[in-house]
């Protein structure tokens, strides 16, 4: 059964190294351009409101996933929300250990059914009200990397 012979000496069982040679540049799309504009110019986040069910998506989409209707109404929203869940992370994506764990949370943005991932400054609990800290205006790119972290408010 199976193949007749296999590699039986460690030195023969070699592996061939390869790295994918490409990188990516993603356009942010129709909704993304509105998100970028609001963030860059006003420091506000953007939601997209379904004409059918009224749900507000954040990040904005040009359609409602549930009703599958096209969305044309975009709302500028204050970058404040509620910590829905969080955890303490000890390593970055390359496995480098942090000196001190970072707190990352999913923040449900007020006035929307959506939210973003962000780092939290200081101690945190579920349900805490937080506000996004943005990079200074002239350095903004209009993408989520403009949100440095979230800080507790109130």
């Amino acid at each position, binding site marked *: 059964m*199976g*193949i*007749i*012979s*296999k*590699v039986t000496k460690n030195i*023969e*069982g*070699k*592996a*061939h*190294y*390869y*790295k*994918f*040679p*490409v*990188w*990516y*540049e*993603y*356009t*942010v799309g129709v909704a*993304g*351009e509105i998100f*970028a504009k609001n963030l860059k110019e006003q420091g506000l986040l953007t939601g997209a409101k379904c004409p059918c069910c009224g749900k507000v998506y954040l990040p904005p989409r040009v359609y409602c996933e549930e009703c599958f209707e096209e969305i044309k109404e975009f709302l500028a929203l204050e970058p404040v929300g509620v910590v829905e869940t969080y955890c303490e992370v000890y390593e970055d994506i390359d496995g480098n250990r942090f000196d001190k764990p970072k707190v990352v949370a999913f923040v449900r943005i007020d006035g929307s059914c959506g939210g973003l991932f962000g780092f939290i400054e200081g101690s945190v609990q579920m349900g805490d009200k937080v506000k996004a800290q943005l990079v200074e205006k002239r350095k903004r*790119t*209009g*993408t989520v990397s403009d949100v440095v972290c979230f800080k507790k408010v109130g």
Partner: protein
Amino acid sequence: MKPDNVRGKNLDKKGFEEATRVKYDLKAEYAYDMGYAVSRYLMGLKAGKIVGIKCHKCGRILVPPRAFCEQCYVPIDDFVELSGRGRVNTFSISYVKWDASRVEKPEIPAVIELEGASPGVGILHVLGEVDPKDVHVGMEVEAVFKEEQDRKGEITDILYFRPVK
């Protein structure tokens, strides 16, 4: 007329550069296990030889070697040393690199049917020491290996195939 009302906004190069974009450096790295049959093949290359494998059922001699005959669907293990010579089955003269950039001096990829393997059984490699104008289907070629100390057990241990003089 259908399709009607087609949607989408095309960006020219400038428009693309002006659009908001997110850049991402992909880090996708692998170390692929060669396994048994391909290890044998590559050990052969390191020794300056091209090795094929014979199916005991259909009698075909196959390159690159594999641990089973994909047509008879039986495991096989009868390695055969080939001469390192062959014939051009088909070729191209390519001015385009893998990333679509252009080169002045073309590369000449070819499928080379190897002597000693079954008819039609070839491998992909490139031709060298030849004027592109002189390349033709059926041309007799031979493998040119790297110097022994430079060979690592990789397909590039064969520098290229050149016409048999």
